[in-house]
């Protein structure tokens, strides 16, 4: 631990603050976008699965296979492979903005599977009752399926956020910035253990906050 906190923060304060905001920006922007696409994909995966409301075995198998493929590509490879696409989309491949597309691409299939899992937990009886009253498919999905699965989906959000947080550190390797980047640059390359230690502590605190916040929200909205 630093012996003199005053000088430590005078020297590294701005760096760490910038690291925090960069990490949070990457984390929330890419997770939000991943949920936007992941929810749609997850609902389709669930509805077309053998236990879903509109089973389409072949379509579901193909889609599931694509999702699994995307999930099995290591993030660092995806990051590099997507560079041309990323440049086209956001006109840069570095900085916070430059890593959002690969982060979204990597988190979306993960989110889709998690949403599918949460939806599958909704009791069959509940869904059939809604179907039996003549609800349309949009009404079933938006009025019953997603609201019933919401507490479980929120619990999944903490898992997603924490794993995306891990990816943002890897993204630091291409100059994305953020806490993970600082930890690697200062701790690994420059042997400045104190900076590394503080960033690691900040990351730990961040993970705890995410986990607790999601748990509290999930508990509050769950009426079971």
């Amino acid at each position: 631990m630093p012996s003199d906190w005053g000088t430590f923060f005078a020297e590294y304060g701005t760096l760490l603050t910038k690291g925090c905001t960069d990490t949070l920006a990457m984390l929330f922007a890419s997770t939000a976008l991943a949920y936007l696409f992941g929810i749609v994909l997850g609902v389709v995966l669930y509805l077309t699965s053998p236990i879903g409301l509109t089973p389409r075995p072949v379509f579901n198998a193909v889609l599931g296979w694509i999702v699994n493929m995307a999930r099995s590509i290591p993030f660092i490879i995806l990051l590099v492979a997507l560079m041309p696409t990323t440049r086209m989309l956001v006109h840069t491949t570095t900085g916070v903005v430059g890593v959002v597309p690969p982060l979204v691409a990597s988190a979306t299939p993960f989110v889709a599977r998690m949403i599918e899992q949460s939806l599958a937990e909704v009791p069959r009886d509940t869904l059939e009752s809604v179907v039996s009253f003549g609800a349309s498919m949009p009404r079933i999905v938006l009025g019953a399926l997603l609201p019933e699965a919401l507490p479980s989906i929120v619990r999944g959000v903490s898992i997603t956020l924490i794993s995306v947080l891990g990816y943002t550190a890897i993204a630091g390797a291409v100059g994305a910035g953020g806490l993970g980047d600082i930890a690697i640059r200062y701790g690994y390359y420059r042997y400045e253990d104190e900076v590394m230690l503080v960033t690691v502590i900040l990351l730990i605190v961040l993970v705890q906050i995410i986990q607790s916040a999601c748990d509290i929200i999930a508990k509050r909205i769950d009426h079971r």
Partner: protein
Amino acid sequence: MISIRNICKVFDGKAGSTHALRDVSIEVADGDVYGIIGISGAGKSTLVRCVNMLERPTSGSILVDGTDVCTLSGAALREYRHRTAMIFQGFGLLAQKTALENVCFPLRSGLGRMPEGAREKGIELLDRVGLADKADSYPAQLSGGQKQRVAIARALACDPTTILCDEATSALDPASTIQVLDLLDRINRETGVTMLVITHSMEVVERICKHVSVLVNGQVVEQGITEEVFANPQHSVTRALLGRGDWNA
């Protein structure tokens, strides 16, 4: 008038096919309370699920007021289901919605706003089943009997012409069972709604059903006016269900 004609239902599974219904024919007059009784696995649930197309019959037809509902799909099927409410053994309430929200749910079948007066109607229906004070309770805060009464209020929301009950009282204690049965009976007399009541309990049939069919292995072995069938049971399973015979006979 519901006229079930020569319905067969075959489930194709990995372990071979199951003939859940074999040539079942039943006529239910408007305003009737029609019981379908049988032991577990007889095909009762399958039959009632066929009536509102949660399950499609393999062959045969189901004529409701002259229309073969097996040919319905899309909006026409939804409209038919709107008029044909269902009550489940497991209640089927939305756990994340209050009793009132559950009751009002069927009032809107697409996206958009709830129709005018939905809330008032929901409260009135809850009042009718004796649960006006539970409007803002969630299902988890209600007893089994109360949950089923909420489900009944929900079934009434769209002013159905038919209510299908699949083992509506099997999960309830004796007191709640009688309360729910009397409620169904009262609703039938007040609104003239047709009811198809699935059960494995003689008590339920005796208490509310005017007509009854006995289902054994997917086949109707006996049907008629409840008193007549019970006074002079022909089939060994009917006698066993009545407690007047041996299950192994």
